[in-house]
């Protein structure tokens, strides 16, 4: 007798097999249109946590673009700060990436490698418009072209809690300017005020770059940072930890741990962008007028934000025109004035707004940051992913706690990170 369940099971099997095979397909930028066509039609523009603070600026810029190109319309979509990489990832893997999207270079790299972003250097002469360093941030090994218009730049400056420094035998008018001075003053602070800390961060790849230690070999195929010099940096932190110069939570600190402890008044030093001072003072009013600002120790880190264009955009010419419009010198300068960030366009550095203080702490942070930007560098290679950073952080924490030596931590990390790199 024929089993009546067979059709049902067969149907189920077909659906399951189809669904599984569908899962095999790679996301590829579908569609795409003429990059030199008319600037018309509607596009979506995705920003990263800019509204409601900068809603007015964005609306005005979009309106100005639509005035210039009456047949074009732009829909603004702002995504929350948390989980942005997951959001972009899911959009890219489901072929729903907005036409123009704000992504930093480390997000743009994997998207460019998969052909999801458009090479904007085909449409714009990048070098004559933007700073060379900011354009280079969107050039990637193994992929020809430039995969984003540099939008704005950022760097870190140092923030010091003046009261804690002065109360603990240090001089808030002369905070540490180098790593050596930092450790010397951390020891003085620990002696005078065992309850307070100066250092609350563990070292990472950026610290090795600052000391001219290569992170990757020349062709980027292997990690090579397990040098005695890098081990010495970790051992120095381990010694400071053993002497009670750092809080125990430094072993668990994530990226924001340092600034959170500073905001809570638990540590006397933090790094942050030029806008961080507003956040410190807003979240802890007792810090108002009590923060000293100085340039980053040694070399400042360079952070780049840019606007990339989806290769699958149905209105590619409009998307390119809009991304270029948003990142032109006038719009970048306007945005930099209200957001305390720095423009990436040629000639913007002549604007006195970035080089002259107006007496407010905010302007002091801006001028300090802008001066630091002239020598700032990208400290961590964009090919270093989250799992790699996690593993390195875990090994460094072991070394700081004294369970293993700095060299052992680095050797183990390099072996594991090379493994992870090979599996990419």
């Amino acid at each position, binding site marked *: 007798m024929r089993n009546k369940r067979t059709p049902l099971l067969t149907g189920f099997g077909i659906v399951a097999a189809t669904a*599984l095979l569908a899962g095999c397909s790679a*996301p590829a930028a579908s569609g795409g249109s003429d990059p030199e066509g008319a600037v018309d039609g509607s596009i979506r523009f995705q920003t990263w946590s800019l509204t409601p603070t900068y809603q007015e600026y964005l609306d005005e810029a979009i309106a100005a673009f639509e005035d210039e190109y009456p047949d074009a319309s732009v829909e603004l979509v702002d995504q929350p700060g948390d989980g942005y990489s997951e959001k972009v990832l899911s959009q890219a*893997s489901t072929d729903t990436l907005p036409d123009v999207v704000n992504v930093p270079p480390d997000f743009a790299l994997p998207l460019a490698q998969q052909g999801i972003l458009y090479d904007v250097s085909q449409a714009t002469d990048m070098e004559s418009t933007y700073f060379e360093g900011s354009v280079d941030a969107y050039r990637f090994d193994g992929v020809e072209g430039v995969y984003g218009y540099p939008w704005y730049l950022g760097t870190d400056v140092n923030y010091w809690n003046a009261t804690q420094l002065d109360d603990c035998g240090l001089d808030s008018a002369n905070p540490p300017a180098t790593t050596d001075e930092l450790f010397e003053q951390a020891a003085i602070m620990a002696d005078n005020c065992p309850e307070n800390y100066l250092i609350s961060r563990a070292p990472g790849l950026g610290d090795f770059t600052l000391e001219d230690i290569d992170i990757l070999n020349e062709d980027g195929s292997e990690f090579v940072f397990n040098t005695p010099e890098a081990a010495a940096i970790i051992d120095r932190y381990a010694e400071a930890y053993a002497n009670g110069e750092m809080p125990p*939570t430094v072993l*668990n*600190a994530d990226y924001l741990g340092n600034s959170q402890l500073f905001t809570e008044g638990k540590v006397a030093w933090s790094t942050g962008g030029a806008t961080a001072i507003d956040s410190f003072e807003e979240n802890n009013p007792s810090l108002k007028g009590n923060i000293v600002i100085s340039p980053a120790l040694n070399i400042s880190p360079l952070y780049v934000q840019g606007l990339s264009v989806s290769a699958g955009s149905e209105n590619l010419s409009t998307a390119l025109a809009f991304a270029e419009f948003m990142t032109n010198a006038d719009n970048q300068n306007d945005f930099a004035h209200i957001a305390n960030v720095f423009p990436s366009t040629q000639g913007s550095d002549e604007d006195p707004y970035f080089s002259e203080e107006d007496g407010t702490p905010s302007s002091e942070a801006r001028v300090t940051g802008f001066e630091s930007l002239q020598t700032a560098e990208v400290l961590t290679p964009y090919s270093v*992913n989250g*799992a790699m950073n*996690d593993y390195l952080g875990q090994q460094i924490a072991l070394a700081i706690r004294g369970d293993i030596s700095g060299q052992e931590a680095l050797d183990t990390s390099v072996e594991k990170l090379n493994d*992870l790199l090979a599996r990419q």
Partner: protein
Amino acid sequence: MTITETPAGGTAPPAGRPRPNRAPNRRGPARATRRRTPWLLLAPALLWLFVFSIWPSLNTVRMAFTNAKPLGGTERFVGFDNFGYILEDDQVANALLNSVVFMLVCLPLLTILPLLIALLVEKKLPGITFFRTAFYTPVIASAVVVALIWTFMLDDRGLVNGLAQELSIIQGPLPFLTDRWLIVLSAVSLTVWKGLGYYMIIYLAALGNVSKDLHEAAAMDGAGAIRRFLSVTLPAVRGAMLLIAVLVCIAALRVFSEVFIMTGGTGGAGGEALTMVMLIQQYSRGFAGDLGYASALSILMFFVTLVPMLILARINSRSDR
């Protein structure tokens, strides 16, 4: 031939003989509707089950044998490579041990303590509702919020260390958030505190079905409170206890948010307090996530979760015999 009268007045086929097939008649569409109705009613649930449970599970198995990446690209079949890498990865053994220890400590605590609390709050006393509510309140709180509060309390300058030092119980702060086993212990404490109320409710429902007559009979036979608990109450709630044990095992092996928040997502120094789910998250997240390897870890996790369930099922079937 005997004709059997049916209550409805119709005729029934003779006993022992097969019921003859009814020829298609005018009642066909009604029968077809009757046959389809259950499937139509089940369809939304089946669709949900397929989309959100069966398909992802099958896809996980498929991906475990590939080098799948979040953005696709050159995905290819890699055989058992991902499973081979599990054997080489020292983080897996570490995470597995943490997850199993977490489960082994949680299991007795969350199986026995809620029963004792249920026995206390089951009594009809004035104001007992307040205590029932108080025990249940942690259940409705967000795991993330609770973990953050506990993190503040267990910090080296937090409430617990401060109080213990104030009372001279300890000289220096205990590293609740940086020592491997203290992290696990802290996470267990949080989980037990948060889970007590939930399992207490299940026990309360089970206790409501325990016959009072049995208790009275046992008391008349001279059984004391402990004897009655062991011989009357415990056998009566055995089913609920096994259910809770299974639920606790599954939940404990999947522990994530408690340890994640308490260690700032790092899993502690050297990642030595990582749990299996944290490890899976660590490998699968981001643009360069290794979905193939994370899927292989998920499959390993599935089989690890099966072990305590099979053991408990075995205990249950033995008890039934």
